[in-house]
């Protein structure tokens, strides 16, 4: 299939974020600090991987195509059968879980970004994109609630807990900003597949998360600045191409090898 078609490029930015976030969330299964958080990250992983699956179906059906008739093996091939440089997720999603504080900070920033993105996509001119976004937005409320509850709880638990969470945010912020990096298809999709551009999605996201973090005295990224009451990134921030353009880190190479191992060893296998 043509991976360079603008609709595909744009949707892979979303689907790959979900797939890789799900893969990394699954690393907490059996290791999270409590049985509830273990189940939570396992469910988050299951949700995100299935949401990725659904976005891959939207890609494969094509605009105005038959979403219900997409072949399962094509979905697996698109999700797991690409070369590492053909994935368009933001690099923050590919980092290892590191520690629970870093994972929580990433979970909070990522799921708030995804919520704003889904909100925007419900107004897509492409009916399948709008319908899937409406469906997923409703499910994602549980992810937001989980992230918000944990970040508030840990931030107020003790000085040590606050410090560790602050360190997690300090580490995750510089790369999390690149969630808002536009894909190369930006000019072709804005105003049609998506009503507003990546920078507007990014600004709305910062407007959601920054006040919460200020209230909890948790750090922001240095690059985030206020223009009036709107939080923004400086012009030209995304001039260097990264995840949305297929530019990744060494952490992705190993995650990709692990994530796609079964698919590469047994192409077309069903499980």
């Amino acid at each position, binding site marked *: 299939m043509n991976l360079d078609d603008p609709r595909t490029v744009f949707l892979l930015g979303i689907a790959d974020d979900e797939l890789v976030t799900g893969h990394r969330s699954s690393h907490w299964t059996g290791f999270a600090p409590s049985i509830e958080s273990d*189940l939570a990250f396992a*469910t988050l992983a299951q*949700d995100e991987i*299935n949401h990725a699956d659904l976005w891959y179906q939207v890609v494969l059906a094509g605009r105005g195509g038959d979403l219900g008739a997409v072949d399962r093996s094509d979905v697996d091939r698109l999700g797991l059968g690409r070369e590492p440089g053909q994935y368009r997720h933001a690099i923050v999603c590919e980092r290892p879980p590191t520690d629970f504080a870093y994972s929580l900070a990433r979970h909070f920033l990522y799921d708030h970004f995804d919520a704003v993105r889904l909100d925007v996509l419900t107004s897509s001119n492409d009916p399948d994109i709008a*319908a*899937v976004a*409406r469906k997923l937005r*409703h499910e994602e*409320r549980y992810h937001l*609630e989980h992230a918000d509850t944990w970040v508030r709880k840990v931030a107020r638990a003790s000085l040590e807990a606050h410090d560790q969470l602050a360190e997690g945010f300090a580490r995750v912020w510089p790369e999390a900003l690149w969630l808002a990096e536009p894909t190369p298809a930006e000019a072709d999709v804005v105003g049609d597949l998506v009503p507003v551009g990546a920078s507007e999605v990014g600004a709305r996201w910062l407007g959601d998360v920054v006040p919460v973090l200020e209230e909890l005295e948790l750090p922001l990224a240095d690059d985030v600045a206020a223009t009036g009451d709107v939080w923004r990134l400086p012009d030209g921030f995304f001039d260097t191409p990264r995840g949305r353009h297929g530019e990744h880190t060494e952490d992705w190479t190993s995650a990709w090898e692990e994530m796609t191992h079964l698919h590469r060893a047994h192409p077309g296998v069903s499980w």
Partner: protein
Amino acid sequence: MTTVDVDAIRDAVASVPDPELPPVTVGMLGMIHEVSVDGGEVVVTLLPTFAGCPATEMIERDVREAVASVPGVEHIDVRFVYDPPWSSDRISAEGHDRLRDFGIAPPVGATHDVPDAVRRLPIAAAPTPCPYCASTDTAKESGFGPTPCRAIHYCNACRQPFEAFKHL
């Protein structure tokens, strides 16, 4: 040529049990969007509950088998659509009773009428009643349980953890 009875198809589909909650059926869950019959060709359109529900494939298989048992059926197409999105508001009163009997608290109140409910979980007007003792002295422990559709609550009255079907 036999004409397939569309009501018989609808009944067959409606009676398929949820693989993870066997007392509750596809019909009680409100998963049926459309059933159409053209000669021996049957198309069943279903609304998936949670997008990540692993039971979806089993439901598709079971619906296919149930429809195949209706006389005159020659070809079956089972499809999932996302518009309209399935909501827990679609679960019938009987479905609520069966869930409660199974030890799972049914979803309380309507989800979709709450302002901003598209982004935020609605603040429940009243706590979820315990499926065992009906007390409302309960608290939500975790939004994530053994399946994507269930959350974990705790009953202070009978001192039991219990599962509740999530709002969607």
